[in-house]
């Protein structure tokens, strides 16, 4: 029997050990929902993350994301004639950028020209079990896989560096796409950019992570049963 496995499932499981103090029950419930392949309820954080990624996409694709107004529209007509570019004699244009533009532009500059939402997959055998590991890379460009993360909280209060080290995503996607040599997390709070890069030399083999997950699951037969039922690869 071959079962599918994703970074979402592995990270949801890992979070049950890594969650904030007092959040263990919620984390376990979230994991069980993921294990049951229940759709994730869209909350504000997820919606903001999607909106931010969409903004990055639009900027990277050369879309005009700002609005333009004649400066004269914003002030009484009597003084509008004063808002003229002295160098050109043209009415002065004021641009209005969407929120998070600064952060999104920094990311768009990096990923411009890459391919978005690229599906990657591979078959694996771990501990005698067969797996189909798959997922979607946000962007693939010239040998590098990029993943865009949005933080609702400003960077000033966070210690981000190293925070992605124990995620399974870079291990999984570098395994699925052997031609890629690097995985880079592009993290923004809508203004600043923090990057964290991993290569095969600096990440754990995904087989080790899957093996740990299966060892844990095998010690919980009721959960193993759900996994084998819900995550089996058809055909």
């Amino acid at each position, binding site marked *: 029997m071959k079962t599918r496995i994703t970074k979402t499932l592995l990270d949801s499981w890992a979070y049950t050990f890594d969650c904030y103090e007092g959040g263990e029950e919620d984390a376990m419930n979230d994991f069980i929902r993921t294990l049951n392949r229940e759709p994730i309820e869209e909350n504000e954080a997820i919606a903001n993350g999607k909106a931010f990624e969409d903004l990055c996409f639009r900027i990277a694709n050369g879309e005009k994301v700002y609005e333009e107004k004649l400066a004269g529209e914003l002030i009484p007509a009597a003084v509008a004639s004063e808002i003229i570019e002295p160098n050109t004699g043209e009415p002065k244009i004021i641009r209005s950028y969407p929120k998070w533009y600064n952060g999104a532009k920094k990311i768009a500059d990096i990923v411009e020209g890459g391919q978005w939402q690229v599906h990657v997959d591979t078959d694996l055998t771990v501990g005698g079990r067969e797996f189909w590991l798959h997922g979607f890379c946000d962007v*693939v460009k010239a040998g590098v896989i990029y993943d865009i993360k949005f933080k609702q909280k400003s*960077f000033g209060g*966070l210690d981000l560096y190293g925070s992605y*080290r124990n995620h399974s995503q870079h291990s999984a996607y570098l395994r699925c796409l052997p*031609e*890629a040599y690097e995985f880079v997390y592009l993290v923004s709070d809508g203004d600043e950019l923090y990057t964290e890069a991993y290569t095969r*030399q600096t990440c754990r083999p995904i087989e080790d992570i899957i093996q740990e997950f299966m060892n844990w699951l095998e010690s919980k037969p009721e959960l193993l049963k759900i996994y084998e039922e819900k995550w089996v690869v058809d055909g």
Partner: protein
Amino acid sequence: MIQHGYELDFSKQTFGVILYGAPGIGKTTLALSDGNNGGDTLLIDLEHGVGRTNPIHRMNASVLSAATYEEVLSDLNTPEAFAAKTIVIDTAGSLVDYLKDWAMRTKSDARQKNGAFNGLKGFGYVKSELESFVNKIKVVMNKNVVFIFHCDEKADKDGNPIQRLRCEGSFRNTVWTGIDFGAYIQMIGNKRYACFTPEDEFFAKGCHGISGHVEIQNLTEETSNDFLQKLFDSARKNMAAENQGVEERMTQYKGVIAAVKEMVEGVTDADTANSCMKAIVSMDHALTSKKEAGKILNDKAKSLGLRFDVPTRSYVADGDKK
């Protein structure tokens, strides 16, 4: 001047470095280890810590001491600063403190009525000024830059120690983006190591063949303080070697992607999509060009109402069964 990638000369490549570790571990001495000649390194000594280094091991350094951020900026425009190969900021956390003081004195809304720093507004000024300061050293002056940080040992959720950069504001995160090497300095047994690969206890960064634990030689009056000089030389050699292969692959990658985009323009139906797919498969791919080419074709096929039929491994009109 435009150069081909294979013509690039890395012999003068500059680097950004983070060094952090416990007090007394020798961060400042280590930061002064690029160059043999007086003035090769400029130490911006914001904590007046240079006196704790052995004079023999700081022979290559000039020292900039300043009471205010404005004095630091002014001293950066001196011939001594321009002559240096490497500029050391000791410490980055103190530079942020200097900038807070500068913001409070020069920006009215960075100070609260009670005289305290207004973090909400003030860190905005600190952030943009810091960005332009670092940019000046790295890009305009084209120097190696070494950021020294003190280190705070904290406990993770399970009570295990984790090492954190001591620095207010977001700089402790964003500083990692622009640097090449980030090392946690620690004693293991009776030896000192610069650790360039992240571990559970600390974060680190290595590239151009520099990784893992690199032993730091104990300095005596007879040995030279040249750790960073050797590290930079080694990275430059590795960059030159890496570049030979990468440049070739990048050129090939760009050629393939350009050709694929042109071919995909001509796709109008299932037959042309399938011909295009065959052509893509037979191309001489580099880096991730094959995967990206597949995505480009697939997006076009979808826009034409085609779908990929897995059993026949071909595109068909949506609704058709081949």
